[in-house]
């Protein structure tokens, strides 16, 4: 088969370029070489797309945050929407001097930004963009994501430790405590969609969501999005880089391109978490006509991912920062017990429902169970908070009584 531009464009539209190229090159080249070339081209497309997208993710963040805070945001460089603002920022960062503090551990200091970016890019290998379009549809997909995402914790510790700066070290310790703690509810929440789909392959999880899992197990989705925000170090949980407390945390000593790499990894990770949420709970590429026209699936996937990303920015613009003890208490004393109970309840209930029951009936039963569990948990928290408030009031009363007795004695 020879190369033909019309067939090529058709294969682009049906997202089967790889199969088309295989047909064209068959016979001209050894098979392994064809596979390697197709893989390399795919990797380059995904990575370059992410790098360019990051420029606009930053712009979207700045614009939306500006609107939340009743400002206009960037509006000078590149027309009235500031479309080239982040491009100009990137060029500026490239031309900046690269400072290495005199006491730094050079190996750890220089390696940390590289490792973060590699980890951020590698996670995209298993995301199902469209039907049949996954980098690597491995049978341990979700597990792979969790394994790679833990690598960035090591990079943060390297950056904080290597900088030989007290703020950086404090930021790194906070980051490790926070990321490591919130990884537990995140992993546990992800077990529930895996359990319902009976597979760890991301593509299979999407295919099994004839009812979106956010409808079936909303509590799991909520726990996942909360702990994902903490994993990203986003505003309600941005202790690891709290500008007003520890200047900027672990990347305080970084300048120029190395700082830009941390920034890049942060935004790729934020977009990745949105993509993962879409895959696990919002049905991935599912939508009307997606199975027949893969390109539609890609569009649905992107729309959903951007909506989740906007939701993250919305939360970021709304909530104030929590204290580190509140952060850890919320995780270990609320989220972890809740998510463990949820796993138990969902596992038992999903097994008790007869497998030949209507899928909407199954979804409905699980939904009711989820809501019941959420209400129970909130009721627990409400009672606890009320008892605490009562204790504080009693204390104040007895103190007030003592104070009036004292003032009476003074008279």
């Amino acid at each position: 088969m020879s190369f033909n531009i019309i067939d090529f464009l058709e294969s682009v539209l049906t997202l089967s370029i790889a199969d088309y190229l295989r047909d064209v090159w068959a016979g001209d080249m050894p098979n392994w070489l064809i596979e390697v070339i197709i893989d390399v081209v795919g990797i380059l497309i995904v990575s370059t797309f992410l790098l360019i997208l990051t420029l606009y993710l930053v712009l979207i963040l700045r614009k939306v945050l500006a609107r939340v805070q009743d400002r206009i945001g960037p509006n000078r460089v590149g027309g009235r929407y500031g479309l080239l603002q982040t491009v100009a920022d990137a060029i500026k960062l490239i031309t900046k001097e690269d400072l290495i503090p005199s006491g730094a551990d050079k190996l750890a200091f220089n390696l940390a930004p590289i490792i973060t970016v590699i980890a951020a890019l590698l996670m995209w290998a298993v995301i199902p963009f469209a039907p049949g379009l996954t980098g690597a549809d491995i049978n341990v997909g979700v597990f792979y994501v969790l394994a790679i995402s833990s690598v960035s914790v090591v990079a943060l510790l390297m950056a904080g430790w290597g900088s030989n700066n007290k703020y950086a070290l404090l930021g790194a310790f906070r980051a490790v405590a926070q990321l490591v703690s919130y990884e537990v509810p995140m992993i546990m929440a992800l077990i529930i969609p895996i359990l319902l789909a009976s597979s760890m392959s991301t593509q299979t999880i999407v295919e099994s969501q004839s009812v979106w899992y956010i409808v079936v197990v909303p509590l799991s989705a909520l726990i996942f999005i909360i702990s994902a925000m903490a994993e990203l170090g986003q505003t309600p949980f941005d202790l690891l880089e709290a500008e007003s407390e520890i200047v900027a945390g672990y990347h305080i000593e970084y300048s120029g391109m190395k700082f830009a790499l941390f920034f890049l990894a942060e935004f790729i990770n934020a977009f990745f978490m949105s993509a993962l949420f879409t895959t696990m709970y919002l049905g991935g590429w599912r939508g009307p006509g997606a199975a027949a026209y893969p390109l539609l699936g890609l569009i649905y996937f992107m729309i959903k991912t951007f909506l989740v990303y906007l939701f993250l920015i919305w939360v970021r613009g709304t909530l104030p920062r929590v204290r580190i003890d509140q952060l850890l208490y919320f995780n270990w004393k609320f989220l972890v017990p809740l998510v463990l109970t949820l796993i138990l309840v969902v596992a038992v209930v999903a097994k008790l429902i007869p497998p030949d029951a209507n899928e909407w009936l199954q979804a409905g039963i699980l939904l009711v169970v989820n809501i019941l569990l959420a209400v129970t948990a909130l009721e627990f928290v409400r009672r606890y908070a009320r008892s605490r408030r009562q204790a504080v009031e009693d204390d104040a009363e007895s103190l007030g009584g003592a104070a009036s007795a004292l003032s009476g004695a003074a008279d």
Partner: protein
Amino acid sequence: MLSDWQFIALFAVIAIIFPGAPLMMASLINPKKPNPIKQQTYECGMETVGDTWIQFKVQYYIFALIFVVFDLEAVFLFPIASAFDQLTLFAIFEVVLFVVILLVALGYAWRRGALEWF
């Protein structure tokens, strides 16, 4: 299946280029004028006092230890979850027992004050 892992291996190799290339580019065009004052540790303009690499608050390590327990638990739960459709109700109750033991462990850590932040 093998080609999927080959993809990931290739990805890991190529992913080095993406942070590497901008760093190389930056090192070609950026100014290099280091001096001792510029290379001082940045701590609000003061000269830094004492050693940075010291023993740190033990609380962080305790949380890390609790994390290891739950991470291991997750490693056991993932295979169970991905074989869920083949499990019998009896197997599910064994899983329940497993998770309840860990919940008890969490309760124990809670009672012993390992989850408190001083």
